[in-house]
């Protein structure tokens, strides 16, 4: 593909670069517009005169600060729980000599294809008394079968000799996990931790399904209330549109920005790992 110095070849390259620049801009601009407009002092479409008033207002309201706190809380606690549960299960399933290993693997794989659906799952969560508790935002999605399988495959790649050596030196199985396997898997654990964190931070559906109490809404639900209902008029989900009708453009933009900031912060770290992680999964499934 190299060394094509013909006119047609160069024209092709130029057209390609222009096209991809357009694609990138189309991806970027809507979000950049929202960010810039959130700092604008007026509601005009051309943003002017920088101000922080929208953010100052947001952080002065109880509702917003509480929602933000709830989102941070469930993201931190939920990620730790998910990661621990996934890593422990993945390690167990990577243990080749485990009697019943195939059965357990099938048990996990089966859930990637079939599930009980929204209503039965709701009843299970309800029977467990999790409705209107923050547990309902962390526990029903505790383990992703997909991540579990990928992590199991990664653990399988750790040489058996290494574990065997530790065992001969007198390590228990738990010792092997904590002193050999996990230290070797830190980058993978970090990557899946970030993926879980993004998933929990972004969840909206579970929140409207399981949380009726407005004081326990995570930020995604609040965002929907403020931005979508206030703009629409004919609202959809629960909650009163009148109560939020008063917010100006700037405040709505600011809510969007605040709820994306954590994603943008972790994105560079995510990007380093996810492509590889996704390919491990797709090749070995």
């Amino acid at each position, binding site marked *: *593909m190299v060394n*094509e110095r013909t006119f047609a070849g160069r024209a*092709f*390259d130029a057209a*390609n*670069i222009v096209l*991809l620049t357009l*694609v*990138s801009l189309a*991806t*970027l601009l*809507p979000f950049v517009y929202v960010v810039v*407009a959130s700092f604008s002092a007026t*509601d005009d*479409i051309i943003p002017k005169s920088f101000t922080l008033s929208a953010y100052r207002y947001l952080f002065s309201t109880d509702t917003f600060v509480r929602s933000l706190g709830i989102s941070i809380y469930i993201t931190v606690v939920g990620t730790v729980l998910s990661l*621990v*549960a*996934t890593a*422990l299960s993945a390690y*167990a399933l990577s*243990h080749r000599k*485990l*009697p019943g290993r195939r059965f357990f693997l099938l*048990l*996990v794989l089966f859930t990637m294809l079939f*599930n*009980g*659906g929204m209503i*039965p*799952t709701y009843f*299970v969560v309800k029977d*467990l008394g999790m409705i209107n508790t923050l547990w309902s935002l962390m*526990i029903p999605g505790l*383990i992703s079968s997909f991540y579990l399988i990928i992590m199991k495959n990664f653990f399988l790649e750790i040489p058996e000799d290494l574990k065997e050596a530790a065992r001969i030196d007198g390590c228990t*199985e738990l010792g092997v996990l904590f002193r050999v396997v996990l230290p070797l898997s830190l980058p993978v654990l970090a990557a899946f931790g970030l993926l879980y964190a*993004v998933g929990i931070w*972004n969840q*909206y*559906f579970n929140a409207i*399904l399981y949380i009726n109490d407005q004081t326990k809404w995570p930020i*995604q639900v609040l*965002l*929907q209330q403020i*931005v*979508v209902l206030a*703009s629409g008029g*004919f*609202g*959809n989900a629960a909650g009163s549109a009148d109560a939020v009708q008063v917010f100006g*453009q700037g405040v*709505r*933009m600011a*809510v*969007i920005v605040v*709820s994306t900031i954590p994603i943008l912060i972790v*994105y560079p770290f995510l*990007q380093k790992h996810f*492509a590889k992680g996704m*390919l491990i999964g*797709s090749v070995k499934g």
Partner: protein
Amino acid sequence: MSDVMTGPVISEQPVPKAKPRQVHELWRRVWKERWIYALFLPGFAYFIIFKYWPMWGVIMAFENYQPFQGVLDSQWVGLENFQRFFSDPAFWQLFRNTFILAVYNIVFFFPCTIIVALLLNELRLRWFKSAVQTLIYIPHFFSWTVVVGITYMLLTTQGGLVNELLKMVGLHQVNFLENSAWFRPLIVIQDIWKETGWGTIIFLAALAGVNVELYEAARIDGANRLQQLWHVTLPAIRGVIIVMFILRLGSFLDVGFEQIWLMLNAMNRDVGEVFDTYVYTLGLQ
């Protein structure tokens, strides 16, 4: 002490004779791995409770389910619920809406991922390629509330960017958000904006594996860049394209709940209501 059955088995007597030792052996292996089972216990409990228990709830579909009577004691009505649902005019509307969105997704979104992957693959400027990739992967990590929020901020008739621009050039404002005609295009555009970049990853991986000698051979035969693209690159990744297409068909009717729910309102419900949102509205709200 023959622990293997010898000769034709006439009575059941040899089996009980052989069993205790095998059971003992199995039990010994299980006991040896008890710590591994202990590690898998949280994961196992999670899968049983949140993935398999709800499947049992599917029985509700064949019952006149009463929440206070529970799944076991509700009256069994056979296929009556199905008869009612299939003869309900709402069913065909839901089916059509879900089906059309799924077709749109395959016809418009799927080719976009292939085209962008091909364009990226043709790029020779390494830094430009990774810059574009970094940018177009980002929206995948945004929540649907954020994507819909941005859509609202751009399209609302109350000071949204697009409508203000339309007004400036002297055109009529369009109420994109509360309009049946615009619902499906908006859903598809959001899908394309959010997931195209992410969708390219798998194709880029396939493209990286194409044999370079094929291009040289094609060039010697006088093929220009477009011809190389058509006759070498595309056939080389045909397998991956077909697999991805089949996978997509597998989740054909699985149109995203969050996205559609957030975009749904009283004015576009006739084209926007799909199975998932109907289940939620009918069953839980």
